[in-house]
């Protein structure tokens, strides 16, 4: 990406360096959601984040996705600190390099599947025709070619999550971040969704960071990071 700077080019896709995140709720009410987390994600890597509820997984993922800024410590993309980025740079990073998949799908109910997938393309310069073509291709890839004019309300949970995945991959990001993508789905559908995400990771070389509760899902990742009380307690490479 930043081809002019070999030092930066050699940097890992993403590093978290002693990251903390403190939510201040009141004067004497602070929640230490993350208490100093460090790790790296390389290009094309597959990382699973596990841990009990409230251990800080989502907080971490939001920081990795540049949706949030750490209270202290650094999150760097290609060696560049998210803290130093302005609003426009952050937006470009989220739009160009990161794809999100949420537990609750986060589709806009009034838009068709196609328009939901087009949504991230609206924030970059491309012609309407090009957008439609790319979004259609993405929907085909997740197996929803025959559902492009349906609205989320007319789709099953698994189909909605497929639309969300199509939306995440339509920008061809370097990194997919998935926060319990199967949490709202039954076991079989959940497995299908995970298979789809892992296929995308394998076929496209997209790095995949997935938060999960399921041991088998975590086991398939190349690396497993377990959080407890805002700290990494184990980091296992498969």
């Amino acid at each position: 990406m930043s081809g002019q700077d070999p030092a930066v080019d050699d940097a890992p896709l993403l590093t978290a360096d002693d990251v903390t995140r403190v939510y201040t709720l009141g004067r004497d009410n602070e929640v230490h959601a993350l208490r100093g987390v460090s790790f790296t994600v390389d290009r094309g890597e597959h990382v699973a984040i596990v841990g009990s509820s409230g251990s800080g997984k989502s907080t971490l993922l939001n920081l990795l996705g540049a949706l949030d800024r750490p209270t202290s410590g650094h999150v760097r993309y290609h060696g560049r600190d998210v803290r130093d980025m302005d609003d426009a740079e952050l937006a470009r990073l989220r739009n160009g390099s990161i794809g999100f998949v949420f537990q609750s799908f986060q589709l806009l109910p009034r838009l068709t599947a196609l328009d939901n997938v087009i949504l991230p393309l609206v924030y970059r310069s491309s012609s309407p025709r090009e957008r439609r073509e790319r979004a259609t291709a993405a929907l085909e890839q997740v197996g929803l070619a025959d559902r492009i004019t349906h609205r989320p309300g007319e789709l099953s949970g698994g189909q909605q999550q497929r639309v969300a995945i199509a939306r995440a991959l339509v920008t061809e990001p370097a990194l997919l971040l998935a926060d319990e993508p199967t949490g709202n789905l039954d076991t079989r559908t959940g497995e299908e969704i995970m298979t789809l995400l892992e296929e995308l990771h394998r076929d496209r070389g997209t790095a995949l960071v997935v938060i999960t509760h399921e041991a088998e899902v975590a086991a398939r990742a190349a690396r497993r990071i377990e959080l407890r009380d805002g700290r990494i307690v184990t980091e296992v490479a498969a």
Partner: protein
Amino acid sequence: MSLRESLRVAMQALRANRLRSALTTLGVLIGVLSVVLLVAIGQGARSEITGAIEGLGSNLLFVLPGDGDFGGGPQRSSFVADDIERVDRSLPGGEGRAAGYVIGAEAVQAEGNRFNATVFGITENYLGVVDRTIARGQSLSRSDVATGRRVAVLGASSAETLFPGQDPIGRTVSLGAIRYRVVGVLERVGTTAFGPDVDRQVLIPISAAQRLFGSTRVDAIFVRAESTVGIEADREAARSALAERLEEDEFSVVSQDEIIGVVGDILQILTWVLAAIAGISLLVGGVGVSNIMLVSVSERTREIGLRKALGARTRDITRQFLFEAVALTGLGGVVGLALGIGAAELVAAFAPVPAEVTWWSIALALGVSVLVGLVFGVLPARRAGQLDPVTALRHE
């Protein structure tokens, strides 16, 4: 995101809430409609009244009681019948260009028909000076005026009311206990919304009117200049003639143009006042837009969070909501303008009030409605743009 894209997204959101968008637009629509309509009525009144003054014929000079300050209301007249003669004789190039009158209201009746008429006591030159013509019979003569003969000339409507379907010439009308013989009927002038209905006048010799009203007063003297260039000479002549007898603050000589200017200015101010009052309803409409936009931002918090997660900048979001607000008020402006013009046409056609849509009220209404959208959209739009994506995505 491009401007066109922002606009498209904004329209999409408005369509998703059609009823709410329509109701919000309605507030602005009513505001714009009332601005356009009230300004049209104000402007219509202005051109009708100035038109009525112009209708007296051009090159008129008005010799009026008082110091010429119209703002102070009507002033007590010190003119007497001799002053009319005095002015007339002073005018360069021959006599017969000055006329005087006294005005009063009196019940007039004839053969069981009666109504309250405006009674004009006039000198024999009056009709010529104010450019009125006799339709039937004859005008009042010099000797009628000199002797205070009990003769009358009727306005067209007066004649119809008192003598429906009959020829009034030679018949008798009564003003109070006194009877007058009708010698003429005036040409119809037509109705105006403002001022006295000149077709409902009864004209009698000024001497007879003074006797009827029990007064020697003359209300005003009119002078018709022979041409535009003659106006100043006539004005000077009339002024110095009257100055022999009256104090400077007892009379003033003003031209038709001056009166039109002053009256026009007053009515222009009236128009602006009407516009301002209507503007308040536009303001209320704007507050409604602000309110609904805040609701919309709060309802769509998750959408905003999502858009940010997908790469929207703060300004993309702000612009999207600003466009929504402007689209709401702009639409209200266009429809309100169309309805306002329509309403003005209806008023002009069916009501006795004139209405005249002016280009500046159109520009003002559209400009202000867009401005209202910007002003009242900024707060909600900024609030939307500044939402934190993580918090927004967690919003229920």
